[in-house]
């Protein structure tokens, strides 16, 4: 893109060219490209007709440059602005939210192009551009978005520079220079990021309701099967110590305790169904600390291992329910991070009890549903089997006759009957549902738990990635004397599902199904791991860098967070930076261009200076050494050798003598 000399052109009407032409071709081109790049990511979140607004203004501005169309008058401009405002009003039905405001900004940004006549106007456009770049983060905060924004800033800086260029310069060079400006600002940016006080959000970001992903608060056959193909991450876990073995990684999300014959549901309220698990008298064993970064899923529930004892996050919005579940005050619309401490085992000094009401709740079944299953359970009960034996019986039944598959046959009204006695093929929700039903029918309190199981270990950054495909359902059974005990009937059918993940547990046709969705080559898998690790790091260190993290980091780095300390460090850093800069400047000026043999001689000069001899500026080394030898004849051997070596290296083109020269200088005067 080379600047062509500007040539005045007459408009068709014969009038002299408008002011608009005074922006040179290449500068205008840069502005147009810059604008397109900046608003591109925004337009995915905004009404489609904003594309059109930009395209029209860009075309108009190009025509103005070519002298075909005139500059719009103020009436036209007002009209355009009104149309845009009206369009936004119509698109958002009068709501004033983030998106509306960003839409308005994009409109203004596009329309401003029609008014850009001089370099000054262009500069204004660039300033708006910086704000536009910032608004990109309202919609996405991923590392990709950050990289794109960085690219936008480089483009902005390059365009800004281009406004003042008086000569042609290649596009690559302009980018390079723009990037250099950004690079210079980078240290300051980093320091500011670390030390600028982190205020809470000044305003909430409204209508950012994330689409609900993952499972819902009810479970019917087939619900989780759909998730098996979804590879998107659900949450990531970093453990303080060693992670627990994989068969203990049951991430509890919801407890479903009401069954209507086909669907398991959560009771309406988060009541006090059972006694609080974190009883003071309980002996907690195998305490595990971990922190979880959960992806927005639009639901209030969060995930933890059995049994959550303590939970923390910065806004203290999470509490532990009576069922040892984690609940956020509001639905999770943004990525959030929280720390949990779970006791993997709890021993009670005196056996816990369920009261009558609770026992009724956990054994209640709809009256007429699944009669055959009921009959089976009652037959077991009538054999005078104990609870433990009935559980073992049920698991054995699953183990003997059932198949784990992602493509189960469809089930009708009495889903448990059909599954247990006819189809015998199913997915985890079939097993857990049937198992809980069986136990309830036998009078044993049981409930279904949905959540995630396992996860993929990322060895790059040492964390566990739990994907949607890890969604799982299992049961918890009340064992007299022990309390709620996790039992996973799926493990009885397909132990591999628990030990190695779903893919190994599936038959061939299922694997085919899954393979299309996410099984990929080794390389791709590794890339995925690395990319996910980068996302995790980004989330952990950038997005979650709040006032607390800041305090922690500052006190670790600087030894405290007092204002004077930070100020002192800032001043110190500034001085060090300025010093380095000055040093680099001086070095460039003096030493960087010196030849190696000259550097060696400079060292010799330093040594002779200690003896009181200084080479005059215009003195050759030979003359200087001659002068030194006049009063220091004992140095003759060393100095003569050095003089000869230097002459060979510097003037006879014999660089192979250089090491010898350096050696001789090093050994001088011995």
């Amino acid at each position, binding site marked *: 893109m080379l600047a062509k000399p500007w040539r005045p052109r007459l408009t068709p009407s014969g009038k002299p060219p408008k002011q608009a032409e005074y922006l040179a071709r290449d500068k205008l081109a840069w502005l147009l490209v810059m604008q397109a790049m900046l608003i591109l990511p925004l337009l995915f979140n905004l009404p489609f007709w904003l594309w059109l607004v930009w395209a029209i203004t860009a075309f108009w501005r190009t025509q103005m440059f070519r002298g075909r169309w005139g500059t719009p008058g103020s009436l036209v401009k007002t009209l355009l602005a009104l149309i845009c405002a009206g369009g936004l009003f119509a698109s958002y039905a009068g709501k004033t939210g983030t998106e509306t405001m960003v839409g308005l900004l994009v409109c203004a940004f596009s329309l401003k192009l029609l008014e850009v006549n001089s370099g000054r106007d262009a500069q204004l456009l660039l300033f708006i551009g910086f704000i536009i770049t910032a608004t990109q983060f309202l919609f996405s905060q991923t590392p990709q978005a950050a990289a794109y924004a960085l690219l936008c800033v480089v483009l902005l800086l390059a365009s800004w520079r281009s406004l003042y260029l008086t000569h042609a310069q290649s596009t690559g060079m302009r980018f390079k220079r723009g990037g250099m400006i950004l690079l210079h600002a980078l240290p300051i940016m980093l320091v500011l990021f670390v030390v600028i006080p982190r205020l809470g959000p000044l305003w909430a970001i409204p209508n950012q309701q994330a689409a609900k992903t993952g499972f819902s608060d009810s479970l019917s056959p087939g619900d989780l099967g759909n998730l098996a193909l979804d590879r998107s991450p659900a949450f990531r876990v970093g453990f303080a110590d060693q992670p627990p073995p994989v068969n203990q990684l049951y991430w509890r999300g919801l407890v479903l305790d009401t069954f209507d014959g086909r669907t398991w549901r959560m009771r309406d309220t988060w009541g006090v169904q059972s006694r609080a698990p974190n009883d003071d008298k309980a002996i907690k064993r195998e305490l595990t600390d971990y922190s979880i970064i959960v992806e927005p899923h639009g639901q209030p529930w969060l995930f933890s291992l059995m049994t959550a004892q303590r939970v923390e996050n910065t806004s203290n919005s999470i509490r532990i329910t009576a069922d040892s579940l984690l609940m956020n005050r509001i639905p999770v619309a943004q990525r959030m991070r929280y720390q949990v401490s779970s006791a993997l085992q709890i021993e009670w000094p005196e056996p816990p009890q369920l009261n009558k009401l609770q026992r009724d709740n956990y054994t209640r079944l709809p009256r007429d549903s699944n009669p055959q299953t009921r009959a089976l359970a009652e037959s077991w009960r009538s054999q005078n089997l104990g609870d433990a034996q009935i559980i073992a019986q049920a698991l054995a039944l699953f183990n003997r006759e059932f198949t784990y598959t992602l493509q189960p046959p469809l089930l009708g009204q009495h889903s448990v009957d059909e599954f247990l006695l006819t189809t015998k093929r199913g997915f985890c929700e079939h097993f857990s549902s049937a198992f809980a039903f069986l136990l309830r029918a036998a009078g044993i309190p049981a409930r279904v738990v949905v959540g995630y199981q396992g996860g993929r270990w990322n060895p790059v950054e040492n964390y566990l990635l739990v994907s949607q495909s890890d969604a799982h359902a299992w049961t918890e059974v009340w064992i007299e004397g022990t309390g709620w005990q996790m039992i996973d009937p799926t493990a009885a059918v397909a132990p591999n599902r628990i030990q190695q993940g779903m893919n190994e547990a599936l038959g061939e046709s299922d694997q085919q199904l899954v393979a299309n969705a996410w099984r990929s080559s080794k390389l791709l898998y590794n890339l995925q791991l690395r990319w996910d690790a980068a996302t995790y790091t980004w989330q952990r260190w950038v997005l979650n860098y709040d006032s607390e993290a800041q305090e922690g980091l500052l006190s670790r780095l600087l030894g405290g967070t007092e204002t004077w300390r930070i100020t002192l460090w800032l001043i110190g850093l500034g001085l060090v930076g300025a010093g380095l800069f000055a040093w680099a400047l001086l070095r460039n000026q003096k030493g960087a*261009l*010196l*030849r190696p*043999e*000259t550097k060696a*001689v*400079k060292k010799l000069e330093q040594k002779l200076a200690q003896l009181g001899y200084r*080479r*005059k*500026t*215009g*003195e*050759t*080394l*030979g*003359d200087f050494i001659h002068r030194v030898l006049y009063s220091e004849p004992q140095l003759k051997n060393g100095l003569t050798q050095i003089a000869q070596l230097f*002459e060979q290296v*510097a*003037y*006879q*083109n014999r660089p192979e003598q250089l090491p010898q020269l350096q050696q001789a200088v090093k050994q001088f005067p011995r």
Partner: protein
Amino acid sequence: MQSLISNIIQQVDQIVLGKDQQVRLSLACLFAEGHLLIEDLPGMGKTTLAHCLAKVLGLKFERVQFTSDLLPADILGVAIFEREQGVFKFHPGPVFTQVLLADEINRSSPKTQSALLEAMEEGQVTIEGKSRPLPKPFFVIATQNPLSQSGTFPLPESQLDRFLMRISLGYPSPASERMLFEGVDPRARIRQLTPIVTHEQLSAIQAAVHQVKASDSLLDYVQRLVAFTRSDTQFAYGLSPRGALALLRAAKAWALIHNREYLVPEDVQTVLPAVVGHRVRGRGHSQDSEPLVKHLRDSVNVLG
């Protein structure tokens, strides 16, 4: 070749007594195919040196005494009408020689001085529209009186630039002067001199000057010197590229005389006053460039 060079030096030294440095410089100038300007008071041995050099090198020698009424035709030659044949016949002037001694060149008018310009630079003269080549080699050894003396026209810068070196002889040391008194008349001894160099040998020596190597370090130094003359405030104007080339060539000849195949900064520093002295001028009124050249030599770092 080296014994030949030292032989020449020895021969000249026997006649021009106690002027080792000047003799070597003037020889270096001739080996570097440059013209020589000797500036000194009358009677210091300028002509003797020039004559001696020509004789030893076995070159055809002409001498022109420049006076204020000397005309260009007196040097270059003139076409005279031959009545018997009815044509103009060119009678070559004294410039058609190998060594031209232009004695007291600044006594003549600028018009005559500039008549030498083409001869010195191109090795040819153009008379009445016809270029006539001069014999090879062609040296001009000019002498001039210090400008402070009356009846002198200062040489223009363009002409000064055409001299590779400008040297001055200076008074002899008492010992050499004593030898001069006691010895035979130098003029008589010059007559007895026999050429010791053939034409081919001289060409070989001149070619060898070009073979002397200048390393990057040394070229850096020369460039620093040149840059200093152009940027330092004491200089009215800096060295031209031709001046810089002259410096390098003279230094190479100096290195060859001292039996070295490569340049060292000392070579440059030695020829510096002779090569640069007449090419630069200080901002002040002083015509004497010696302090200026000394300032140049002392201010530029040899090692970078």
